[in-house]
């Protein structure tokens, strides 16, 4: 895959779009309308204790992904009720257009005591063309299960031949804290199918993308596109510990292909998207949270750079396969 990186596109610390955005524009994901592209992302405010709360916002961009033409002015989706799976934030949100209806698969966050967080995947529906989304219920559509014991999240959905396919992640374990490191999670990419988007059949603990680092490799945010007869998946991956400040161990992009949606061949080199070699660049230390989509017959990939998207997201355009 040959890509042209077009640089950082949106920086919430510079482009003050709505009052509540202070920093972070993470995990950009799109719905393509007839005459514009809406990019949803997670941004953050702080609560009274100084802890982050994730919120969803969007910007509207022209079909060539060159300029911002509008932005969200009200809350896209609120926080969940007391004690629910998404009480402390939604990150990421994955919008999905099915015929004329707009849905969003959310990854809800709920704070725990022995570990920082537990997550689950929720479903919300929009009745106002994507300006706001309403939950279908208080609880998640996908949560932990016997062999996917913790941290089910990062759902991304496509419909192929009348079947909804979801790629998502599940946690395999929490690694206890050490002198230098807080508790650390390990998660892998997996797959479920559905005919109604509410009831999903899991493969129950089946990791579909092989590790290249070690068994504690963390894999996140799968995004899939079909080009001709091949399914292409991008995702991000990192070491389980010492990944925040150490670029050697932080997030970068992975890539895999499949012909049958069952077997995936991982080949990150062929993915063709790598961290910038220039130290001063916005994506020189880290690349994460990829999102692939088509608009105006072009294939774009949005992603976050250094510091997990604290300073926004950028865009690349596919030149050739």
């Amino acid at each position, binding site marked *: 895959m040959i890509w042209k990186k077009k640089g950082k596109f949106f920086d919430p610390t510079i482009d003050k779009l709505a009052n509540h955005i202070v920093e972070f524009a993470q995990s950009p994901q799109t719905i393509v309308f007839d005459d514009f592209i809406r990019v949803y992302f997670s941004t953050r405010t702080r609560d009274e204790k100084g802890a982050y709360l994730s919120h969803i916002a969007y910007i509207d961009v022209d079909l060539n992904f060159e300029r911002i033409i509008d932005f969200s002015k009200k809350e896209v989706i609120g926080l969940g*009720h*007391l*004690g*629910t*799976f998404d*009480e*402390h934030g939604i990150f990421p949100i994955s919008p999905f257009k099915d015929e004329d209806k707009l849905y969003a698969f959310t990854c809800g966050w*709920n*704070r*725990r*005591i*022995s*570990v920082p967080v*537990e997550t*689950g995947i929720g*479903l919300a529906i929009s009745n106002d063309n994507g300006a706001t989304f309403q939950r*279908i*219920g*208080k*609880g*998640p*559509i996908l*949560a*932990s*299960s*016997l*062999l*996917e*014991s*913790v941290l089910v999240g990062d759902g991304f959905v496509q419909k192929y031949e009348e079947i909804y396919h979801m790629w998502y992640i599940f*946690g395999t*374990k*929490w*690694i*206890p804290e050490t002198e230098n490191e807080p*508790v650390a*999670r390990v998660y892998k990419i997996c797959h479920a199918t559905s005919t109604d988007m*509410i009831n999903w059949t899991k493969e129950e*603990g089946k990791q579909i993308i092989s590790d290249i680092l070690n068994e504690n490799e963390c894999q996140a945010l799968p995004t899939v596109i079909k080009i001709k007869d091949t399914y292409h998946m991008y995702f991000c991956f990192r070491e389980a510990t010492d990944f925040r400040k150490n670029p050697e161990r932080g997030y970068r992009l992975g890539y895999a292909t499949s012909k049958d949606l069952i077997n995936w061949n991982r080949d990150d080199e062929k993915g063709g998207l790598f961290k910038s070699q220039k130290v001063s660049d916005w994506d020189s230390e880290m690349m994460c949270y990829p999102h692939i989509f088509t608009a105006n017959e072009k294939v774009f990939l949005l992603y976050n750079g250094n510091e997990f998207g604290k300073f926004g997201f950028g865009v690349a355009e596919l030149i050739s396969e």
Partner: protein
Amino acid sequence: MKKLNWIKKGLLFNPKEHNTPLWMNEFAQAPHVLHFQDFIRVYFSCRPCPDANGQYVSYSAYADFDFDFKLISISEHPILPLGQLGTFDEFGTYPVSVIRNEDQYYAYYAGWTRCESVPFNTAIGFAKSNHPDSFNKVGDGPLISYSVDEPFVISGPKIRKFNDIYYLFYIAGTDWILDNGKPEPIYKIRMAESKDGIHFIKANKQLIENKLGEYEAQASPDVFYKNGKYHMFFCYRGGANYRGKENGYRIGYANSIDLVNWNRNDDYVGIDVSDEGWDSEMISYPHVFELNNKVHMFYLGNQVGKQGFGWATLENELL
């Protein structure tokens, strides 16, 4: 109106009255009987002393009784370990319900984790064994977890098998309400069905109508088949200020012919708090079973089983 006629027999088992291990310092909650040829095994849940912050973990255990309800022995170890770091059952395995499946034993239990905004959350785990003394978890995660209409506090499993179908009765949270700023859970009685005891389909239905309003909490759905009908004994309490006599747990009753549609009729239940003694403030977590051609009930008293469980015997017919 005809009522059940229970004769209370008093407290049957209190860990404090025995030389129990540290992990069984006090509490004997949610008793559940498994019948053997010449004794009954009563599974229950217990706790060590609380930690420095006053927080408990819970374990499940058993005590064996002969047919005269004399104690034979107490388990030496918990029947289940606590879960791994960050998993749903890291801080407790309570309550537990065990059923025979050919040569094996299946255990369904609620696992407890601790949360920041509310004190805890629970989901139902699954374990198996060839020997009913201890169980192996089938996975590190839950069997019955949160879903769209059952967002949290999935607990109180009671497994039954009727006509070759497994029925799991349990509770699911609907709200956390604030009582003087303190979050308190509201939960309702639910059910799921399975052909194999492993893959369950939720009924997605509140089985028992509210008597105390929207914020009534209902627990311990204990279903017993007798005289052509399914009888459910359960407990219920007010939404707030329920740790004393006023809004504390009472035992309710409902019956059904199809396990799906239930008629609540608490007036029939025939058991209430005593004027004094161990069950004078609340009665809860009923479990009904047959032994020596009589119907018996195990239940908890004040402080939801801190002093253990007691029993009553039915003197008239369950119709």
